[in-house]
């Protein structure tokens, strides 16, 4: 009961702050609301008894990526971007796409409404070795895919550095 109420509060918080992210004019405010969204999603992970994912969510997204985003935003003059007109000219196309997507999602939800269940939290015993289980899965059972993914990321990083360096010269 407590878990369900908390789940709904956190979900509402996540969705509400996500709406705030795209409606704020000030990019720093948007970034702050995005942090609230990420935190709420982290809370949902905790309710589902996935503490490791909660910690990683906060360390990676809130502590790492969002810091870098805010770091960049701070260098942009916020006053200018606040006074500018909306610079998306294809709003008609955008609106159509959104409506089609909403219709699709609505139809899918309608069709599946009989089997529609909230995500079940893992049994209490799973809490004990959550971190170890993820470690075993990533570094023993699925070692090759993980290594491939990490090499891809490394290549992307090296590429970004190379491009930035060439521009400076």
């Amino acid at each position, binding site marked *: 009961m407590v878990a369900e109420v908390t789940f709904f509060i956190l979900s509402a918080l996540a969705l509400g702050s996500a709406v705030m992210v795209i409606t704020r004019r000030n990019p720093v405010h948007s970034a702050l609301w995005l942090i609230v969204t990420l935190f709420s999603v982290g809370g949902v992970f905790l309710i589902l008894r996935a503490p490791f994912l909660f910690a990683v969510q*906060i360390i990676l997204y809130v*502590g790492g990526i969002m810091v870098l985003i805010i*770091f960049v935003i701070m260098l942009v003059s916020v006053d200018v971007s606040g006074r500018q007109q909306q610079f998306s000219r294809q709003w008609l196309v955008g609106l159509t796409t959104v409506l089609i997507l909403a219709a699709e999602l609505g139809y899918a939800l309608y069709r599946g409404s009989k089997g529609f269940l909230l995500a079940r939290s893992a049994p209490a015993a799973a809490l004990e070795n959550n971190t170890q289980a993820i470690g075993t899965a990533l570094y023993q059972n699925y070692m090759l895919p993980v290594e491939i993914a990490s090499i891809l990321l490394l290549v992307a990083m090296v590429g970004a550095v190379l491009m930035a360096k060439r521009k400076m010269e």
Partner: protein
Amino acid sequence: MLQNVLQFLNDHYLILATIKILIVFAVLLGIVAYLVLMERKVLAFMQARLGPMRVGPWGLLQPIADGLKLLLKEDIVPAGADKFIFLLAPVISIIAAFTVFAVIPFGPPDKGFVISDINIGLLFILAVSSLGIYGIILGGWSSNSHYPLLGALRSSAQLVSYEVAAGLAVIGVLLCANSLSMVEIVKNQQAAGIWNVFRQPVAFIIYLIAAVAETNRNPFDLPEAESELTAGFHTEYSGFRFALYFMAEYTAMVLVSAIAVTLFWGGWLRPFASVHWLNFLDYTPVVVFLGAGVVVILGSIKNPVPGEKLFLFAVAGLCFFLAVVVAIPPVNAWIQGVFWFVAKVMVFLYAFIWYRGTFPRYRYDQLMNVGWRVMIPVGLANIIVTAVVIYWWSKPHAAAAATLLFR
């Protein structure tokens, strides 16, 4: 009666946790207040001065006077500031600093000195302490002023870089302990009979340097380098909001010291905990309180002001009373862990002040060079070496690796 109370607290663990949190919070506030006085005093002695002497004997009541002064000062918000964020930023800083103490084991868990022992303790610490950076960035940005913005930019770059180094250092400990729980890490050191500082000396040095950098203390206090940036990110803050930043900085100092003690210096364990003929060390708390009482008595005899004389006699009386109390065997056994923990933390706090008194400030490019070109590669090498050694020492793997290599 006492049985009933204990049973009730056992059933309602939230109440017990709340009580513990309040106690830890109050004690921390006291420590932080007196840490400021200690810093001023120690720095003064290093520079052949006396330090604060006016408020109370030896300036002992100075923290109270400072607190009152900051509370009563006018709270100024700059005209061009983003008001909501300006008000929010110091609160983020201080919440991030205090929250982490929830998973620090101050003493053995069976004696009730742990608020919560969670499976992901170490990750929780990394996660929450990385939020402190928002207090600095947002405070600097929302002030809408040049010096704070520059200070905030510097500080976010510095904190992000050194967080990586600290994280890498922590992984070495994690490999040794086989657990992310802070309690398990200390218990592992007890079982191994050796503190992690001797098993992971490289990791300890990296963590120590990164900890100083992450708390923005000398020699890495570039975010608030006063000769270049006035006061860095908190230039525009005044009154109690400034006090919040100040408290957050000193709480973070206590925090990184507590983490260093738990990870590397055996947490609540007594030095030579498994050497039984050194068990007389259990009575060190008694000696410490007796010594403090004697020092205060000697000082009060020389003090000419009657009021202060009385105050010092009262303090000395308290010291002697505490000495008698901790000499009672059950009490002695109960406070054993927390005494050693606090004593070790104090060593680190003294070292922080010592650095400030002795090291010149780094230049910004030097700071980044040390962080990225020295500490991170050394940290990575430490992880690889540790992992290989541990893999080699665990018997079944060693056999498998040997057949793989030499078949």
